[in-house]
């Protein structure tokens, strides 16, 4: 299901990202439409995390344009429409914080400055905690939760802001099966509401049925963009009906041009159908 007529929610055009001077993303073109559930697959270091982080402005692009909800990223300020679940090992810090407090911080973008929580804020927080099945733990400290439960608390935090675009960076890495299921259920409810979801994942598990588009990253480029795949490896032997953009355009030899792999060899390239 490609909702190409729906409004564009997130777009990156010719995006190039360099970390520490080394290009890690090159020539990325990705357009996500409203209501799409896109999963980014790829090996470690393929750049999938960097891609979503650059979409959110957490990593600057050295070239290319990014826009969110039709507004160029530098001018974008409607952050209440974006919910982010960062990739991390734990939700704890040096001082104890209850599940309620962590989730409540997801409501900040919708709260008036220097004002206590309103009724709507409280019910949104309560609903978000219930959606990930942590209601009975909401007063407990985050450090007493299991890794999977902590990750669920971070998802609830993003849910509490009631975003239109939900960006998740490996939300189920190292999460127990029960939490993965609770989490897939919460995502399914969002999908039903028409929320756009960009999900970076290693393995999909119970979330697989929700996905309607897969993007596979390889070595800082998009290697596959099409109907859902179960894993990144599948992209290698699926005969996908899309064209490689750089077949038409002059080849980018942007680093180490003398060391070309067989795939990057122009003569080998011409022999392909």
């Amino acid at each position, binding site marked *: 299901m490609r909702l190409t007529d729906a409004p564009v929610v997130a777009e990156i055009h010719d995006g190039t990202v360099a970390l520490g001077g080394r290009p890690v993303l090159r020539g990325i073109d990705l357009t996500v439409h409203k209501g799409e559930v896109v999963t980014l697959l790829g090996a470690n270091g393929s750049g999938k995390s960097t891609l979503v*982080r650059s979409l*959110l*402005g*957490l990593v600057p692009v050295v070239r290319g344009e990014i826009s969110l909800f039709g507004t160029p990223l530098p001018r974008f*300020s409607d*952050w*209440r429409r*974006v*919910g*982010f679940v*960062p990739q*991390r090992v734990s*939700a704890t*810090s*040096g*001082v*104890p*914080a*209850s599940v*309620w*407090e*962590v989730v*409540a*911080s*997801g409501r*900040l*973008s919708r*709260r008036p400055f*220097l004002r206590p929580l309103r009724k709507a804020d409280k019910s949104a927080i309560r609903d978000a905690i219930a959606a990930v099945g942590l209601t009975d733990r909401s*007063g*407990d*400290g985050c450090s*007493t939760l*299991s890794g999977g439960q902590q990750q669920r608390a*971070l998802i609830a*935090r*993003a849910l509490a*802001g009631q975003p239109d675009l939900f*960006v998740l960076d490996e939300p189920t890495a190292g999460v*127990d*099966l*029960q939490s993965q*299921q609770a989490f897939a259920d919460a995502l399914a409810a969002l999908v039903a509401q028409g929320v756009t979801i960009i999900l970076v994942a290693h393995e999909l598990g119970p979330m697989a049925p929700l996905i309607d588009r897969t993007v596979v990253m390889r070595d800082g480029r998009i290697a596959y963009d099409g109907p859902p795949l179960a894993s990144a490896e599948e992209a290698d032997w699926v005969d996908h009906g899309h064209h490689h953009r750089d077949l038409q355009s002059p080849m980018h030899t942007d680093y180490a041009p003398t060391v070309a792999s067989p795939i990057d060899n122009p003569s080998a390239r011409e022999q392909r159908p």
Partner: protein
Amino acid sequence: MSLLAHDFVLLALVAALFTGLAAPAVGTYLVQRRLALMGDGIGHIAVTGVALGLLTGAAPTLTAVVVATIGAVVIEVVREKGRTSGDVALAMLFYGGIAGGVLITGLAGQSANILNRYLFGSILTISPSDVWVTAALATVVVVVTVGLSPQLFAVAQDQEFARVAGLNVRFYNVLVAVMAAVTVTVAMRTVGLLLVSALMVVPVATAQQLTRGFRTTLLAAMGLGTVASLSGVATSAYVDVAPGATIVLIALAGFVLAWPVGVLLRRRQRLTEPFAMTPGLARDAEHTVVPEEHEHVHGDDCGHLAVPHGDHVDYVHDGHRHAPHGSHYDEH
């Protein structure tokens, strides 16, 4: 109570009250960011500020606020740019601060003894105008740290999330650094620059032995800090001991009392943590009847640890988990 009638004791108590409220309030955010020693570093840098005041004839409190603020912002920048803790750069900043202070004091023609008043505090010689400055600055610190606590909490908890929530992370980071610098100078006369970090960190460490939430930790730490500083000043008014050191030792005593309680609470919480229920695995699938005889019926007060396990309760004894099942117990 006759000592309380003396003006200098009253002034000291007022100064202690405000310091005791403000220091742990900022300290909570420093501990949350795992920067517990930042207050100590700012204290070292403030020594140079005090010395500059002695050299130029300006009020040492004023010059200390300025230098400590600059130092705190530099520490924040080093931390942000360095991506790691940048501890070597910070250490150089700290020792540069204290060495600069001693050097400039010498240049000002003062003996290093005058620095002692700032290094270890001299709350009983505090003047009414000093108390006003202390009260005003401490009020600013408390209003900012409590009033902006949702924002400051979110930024300290998860910077990336805070950025995507539209918060200006750098602004809040610098704000905490500046508040820490102001607090250090406020507490300079009470507990002294070398001990100020203790008043910022120890009440927080004590509070979090017993608390589960951030807000309760923040408020409890402020309460504990106030109690410690007031009772420290009161003690030193009756017994001839240094007030700053007394305040810090009382705060530490509070921690020593709270710690075993915290250990017990955490141990209890860990033991009664519900056992994970494997979804899709029916109870009958792991149906193993316990062979041994039970002398009593497991129940609410049988003395054995009762741990929730899905829809029932497991009783733990001798390394086994026994769940009641009709007339017998199952091994879970």
